[in-house]
């Protein structure tokens, strides 16, 4: 059995490891765009802020490909898939034939529209090479502009602040991380960042840049301008599936997969940032481009490719971050619409700077926001993932003393 995996990220790696575990004789070819050894993408922001060196990003042993008998084909993107003949074409290279194919090509940074994007020192922050470029630019940089208040923009701002730069964050919505947290937690985060010197400008976006070779200033939609010598674009990511033939593989925002991570085409699977599958809390298809989902989906895809029909219950959006003095954990739906039958319970303790908010739909927990009390967050995430009905008084789950024994009535 020949397995071909597109993607050298954690979804592809997890799938390859699972296939090898279940089928010692299988052929595994791994096609990847990034040439470096498997590394931990969420940790690149820690290289930027200086808390870890570059060489600590590796997450597998140096002889990983040899040990798992994986044939790596790195440095090129896949250009086409021939579904009928079961082959994958690679730029500047011959076609590779497969019996089972996994598309784990991940996502690319969402581009922005603005003038003079070609100027130096305008970066995305997605790969370790991006961060390497940013670090090279740092010695001559004093003022940074971060576009986007999502996770990437936010981590970039945090890292640059740590490096001693004056950072301005530009967000379209009213507060940072508006996709991840609710307004109350968003305000706590904004206040904390402001206290540490971050300037946040809301409800504005960039229309163009200017500079002599290198970026020097940005022009905003409201007519004002900001001086900056380093720019980071963090406007989210888009699934990387331009090589996927739409006539044979169903694609929405991401590649649509079933409970076995299989696409609409037999023997072709998808996992990770590129896949779109049922989201447990939203009860509809969703692309959850997060690390732990990529691990789980990669493992499930690997099991199914190796012949074990294992089903995945669905994905769940979730995030945890430490922001100076704030620990924030969120999962599922954090900003429920007011018209549906959502029940929201919340508790805040301003003195301890804690905040908890739980969102229920009937007797099921479907969303949470925790600030500065994240230790029991995994219990709540597990409750959401297993869709366990909550039968205890909901306010009990907000108490500081909550533990999972309290979910059991007797």
């Amino acid at each position: 059995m020949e397995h071909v995996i597109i993607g050298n990220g954690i979804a592809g790696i997890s799938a390859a490891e699972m296939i090898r575990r279940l089928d010692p004789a299988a052929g595994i070819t791994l096609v990847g765009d990034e040439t470096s050894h498997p590394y931990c993408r969420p940790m690149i922001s820690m290289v930027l802020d200086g808390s870890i060196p570059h060489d600590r990003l590796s997450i597998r042993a140096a002889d990983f490909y040899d040990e798992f008998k994986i044939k790596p084909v790195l440095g090129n993107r896949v250009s086409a898939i021939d579904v009928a003949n079961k082959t994958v074409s690679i730029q500047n290279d011959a076609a590779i034939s497969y019996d089972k194919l996994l598309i784990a090509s991940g996502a690319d940074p969402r581009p922005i529209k603005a003038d003079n994007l070609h100027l130096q020192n305008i970066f995305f922050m997605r790969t370790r090479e991006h961060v390497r470029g940013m670090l090279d630019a740092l010695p001559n940089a004093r003022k940074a502009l971060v576009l986007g208040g999502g996770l990437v923009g936010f981590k970039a701002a945090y890292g640059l602040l740590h490096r001693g730069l004056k950072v301005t964050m530009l967000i379209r919505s009213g507060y940072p991380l508006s996709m991840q947290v609710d307004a109350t937690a968003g305000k706590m985060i904004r206040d904390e960042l402001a206290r540490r010197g971050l300037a946040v400008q809301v409800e504005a976006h960039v229309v163009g840049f200017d500079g002599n070779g290198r970026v020097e200033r940005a022009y905003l939609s409201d007519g004002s301008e900001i001086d900056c010598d380093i720019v980071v674009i963090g406007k989210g990511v888009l699934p990387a599936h331009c090589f996927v033939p739409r006539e044979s593989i169903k694609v929405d925002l991401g590649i649509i997969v079933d409970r076995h991570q299989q696409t609409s085409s037999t023997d072709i699977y998808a996992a990770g940032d590129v896949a779109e599958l049922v989201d447990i809390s939203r009860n509809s298809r969703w692309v959850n481009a997060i690390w732990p989902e990529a691990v789980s989906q990669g493992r499930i895809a690997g099991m199914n490719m190796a012949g074990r029909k294992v089903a995945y219950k669905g994905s769940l959006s979730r995030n945890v971050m430490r922001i100076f003095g704030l620990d924030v954990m969120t999962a599922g739906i954090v900003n429920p619409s007011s018209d549906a039958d959502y029940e929201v319970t919340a508790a805040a303790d301003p003195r301890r700077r804690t905040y908890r908010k739980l969102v229920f739909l009937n007797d099921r927990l479907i969303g949470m926001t925790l600030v500065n009390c994240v230790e029991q967050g995994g219990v709540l995430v597990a409750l959401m993932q297993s869709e366990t009905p909550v039968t205890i008084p909901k306010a009990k789950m907000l108490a500081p003393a909550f533990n999972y024994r309290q979910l059991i009535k007797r």
Partner: protein
Amino acid sequence: MKKVIVHPERCVGCMQCMAACATAHSRTKGLFSAILETPVPKPRIHVGVGLYNEGFPNRCRHCDPAPCQLACLPGAIFRDLALDTVLIDPDKCINCASCAMACPFGVIRYHEHCFAPPGKVVAAKCDNCFERQMQGLIPACAEVCKVHALTFEEPAEALKRKTDEVARSVSTGVLQSDLAAGFTLLNTHKRKQIEMGQD
């Protein structure tokens, strides 16, 4: 292999396991000297209460596969096969709290400890007292537990005992016996107090 087995129905919530655990994870290994250490040693077993104030010792299950291990970004969480124990390498840990989001039992805490680099906050959880076990001692929580809510034994034996208890309780002709009568009485008492308070 012997393991610590939790019998939550017997727990009275005395928290002696917490003190013993913190002491076992100190530099000096004595209660009175441990509290003078910097950083102050902290327990990795957490006694909480259930809905009716019954005691509940919450301890790492050392799951396999371990959700915390799969979620760990830097690969700091690993399984020690000899002791069948999930361990955290404090040198690799980046204190990102990804494991807090993954642990279905909520047993991971974040603080400095005497086995981690000085001044570094890291994830900490039960390590099955591997240091004590290598010296031939049993885990501190099980050693100190006075009511056998925590026992150190072969899982198969504990399971057999439990199966026998259940079998006895459902078989007719055998006198119904409450094997932990005192605890049942205590927990019933606590429960009634709360229920009466609610009316």
